[in-house]
């Protein structure tokens, strides 16, 4: 018998991800630049974490390490109880498909595909195969979940910014990931639409999904369960009252 993640406080559940002293140094043409200098981060099921920080502080780099786009130079990265610090790319691709959902500032929707086809992109990715009917049902369910099921056949140029971002969120949710990573998802949206999008992301955590939101917007950060500030390559907690 399993216990629903929603009935047990998040902090008491085993963590979804656990970063311990993670470091990352970028080696460009100039001097190597240390972006992350020992980041510790734990995300439990249902957790929502906002990460604030100045531009260039390493927020997106941290998110790309969590999302297995890149690998840390040092430290340890645990996914559940599995050490994935130096996971090979082939296995990382499978984990990105199964465990993570990504939402970006730019929506990255393919203009020649309909909203439904854009969402289906996450299902037709070579990680297992779903029959057409099941695929269609999952895609529609994901679109309904973000409130735009009626726009399934519309192509991105005919959708508003908020609708496009919701299609992107549906794409991130369609595989029912355990962790949702959002990199400034409201950056290209007006305030109202941005609030709507953050609400949609928050709703996902109510079903046990962990959320890591990188943002500049303190109002949106305040809606998260925890707020962390990244500066000098280290994450520090920010009290809610300070955020507000």
């Amino acid at each position: 018998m399993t216990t629903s993640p929603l009935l047990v406080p998040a902090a008491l559940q085993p963590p979804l991800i656990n970063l311990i002293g993670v470091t990352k140094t970028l080696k460009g043409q100039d001097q190597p630049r240390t972006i992350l200098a020992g980041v510790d981060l734990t995300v439990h099921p249902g957790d929502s974490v906002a990460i604030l920080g100045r531009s260039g502080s390493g927020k997106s780099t941290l998110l790309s390490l969590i999302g297995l786009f890149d690998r840390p130079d040092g430290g340890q990265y645990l996914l559940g109880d599995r050490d994935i610090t130096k996971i090979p790319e082939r296995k990382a691709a499978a984990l990105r498909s199964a465990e993570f959902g990504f939402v970006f500032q730019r929506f990255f929707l393919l203009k020649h595909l309909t909203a439904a086809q854009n969402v289906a992109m996450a299902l037709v990715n070579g990680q297992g195969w779903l029959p057409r009917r099941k695929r269609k049902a999952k895609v529609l369910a994901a679109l309904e979940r973000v409130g735009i099921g009626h726009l399934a056949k519309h192509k991105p140029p005919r959708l508003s910014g908020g609708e496009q971002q919701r299609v992107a969120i549906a794409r991130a949710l369609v595989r029912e990931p355990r962790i949702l990573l959002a990199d400034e998802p409201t950056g290209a949206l007006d305030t109202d639409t941005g609030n709507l999008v953050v609400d949609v992301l928050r709703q996902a955590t109510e079903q046990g999904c962990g959320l890591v939101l990188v943002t500049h917007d303190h109002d949106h950060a305040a809606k998260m369960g925890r707020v962390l500030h990244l500066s000098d390559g280290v994450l520090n907690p920010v009290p809610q009252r300070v955020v507000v």
Partner: protein
Amino acid sequence: MIRLSGRLRASLIIGGQGIRARKLRTFLSMVSLFLGVLAVVVVQAGAEIANRAMLADIELSQGKDGTRQMYLSPEGRTVPVALEVLEGRTDSVAMTSARAIIGEPGVKPINEGGGPIDQSGGGYGPNMTCDQSGCYPINDGNAGAPEGQAVELQLIGLTGDIRQFRPFRPSQGQWLDFGGEPSLAPRLVLNEEAAKAFSQYHVPAEMRVDGATANPTPQILGVVDDGGYQPAAYVRSDELLNWLPVTSMSGGNSGPGLQVLMSPAAIEVEHILRARLTAAGTPEDRIHVQTVETLERMSTELAIMRWIFLGMAALVLLIGVAGILNVGLATVGERIEEFALRRAVGTPRLLLAGIVLAETLLTGLLTAALAIGAGVVGLKLALTMFGSRFPSLEGVAFPWQAGVAGVVAGLVAGILGGLIPALRAARIPIATVMRA
């Protein structure tokens, strides 16, 4: 297996979406590739048709490769000695040739000179003989004779079954039986050209053979396809010799003399024949023996020609490949974000490469289908326009090998044109989406 199948399906679905999204580019890629694939299809189709036209009947007229052939001029005692040595042997066959006219007595044959029946002008004209002062018609009794129902043909006497060396195709009836006693009414097997004459003209069955003691009445047993264009009939030598003295086969000027066909294993027969002929006074240098290699030689020549033309077609194809490559590289450059995003949602590098390859392969296959279609239509047009002028083109169908060559050319072009863009797509860093 299921995993592989899923990836294959995924690459085909996404590749198809890519093609639909860039119809004009796909069309232009197909245009650049079309001529190359068409060139391959045309060369392969031409080579196959030429092969069929030139090689199909070569064994019927020239003999199977490996057959030993001895040519003897019909002088002195050559013919009787050869017939005596080869009588009753199964590994060697002697062929004598004589001119014969079958039909109404005392009339000029419809194909004087033994030419094809349908040839305009009624044959080759009277038989000629040449000396130092010039060439003259032979007085064969036809001069001044009225035209009538008679067919002139080449009568070939055989000491055994020739089909082991020349695999004549049976058309009707049966072949000669060399086992029993010879018949006084010579039994004939006609070739198809002679059979055509006998089906067109109702000729009385009297046979006039040059040098024969009388005109026998032949029996026709069957018809074979011997690959020849002139009317001919095959008869047992011993049945022919009932009416034609062996001396009249010697020293004459009718036909090519005596030809002996021997299996490669019949070395002993060749030695005996040489010895007997030399003893009978035939000079050693008049005995010519050669091994038939016609099929192999012609096949080699045709293959060389085919490869030369395929090489030229490949050059044209290469230009098309460069076109696809160019478009592919440009397209990958434009789709960097798409590929990075696909990697972000879990698409493996291999599948990304597969998607790009699937697009170029589908483009190549579509082009191949067009080129094959054009080839089929072109061949039909060519047959309609030139078929009547070239009898060897009769019944020619589009060779399946040309279709296969077109598909292979399309696939190869797709792989060559898509490989580098595919590798580039697979190497696009996933963090591109984060930096965008």
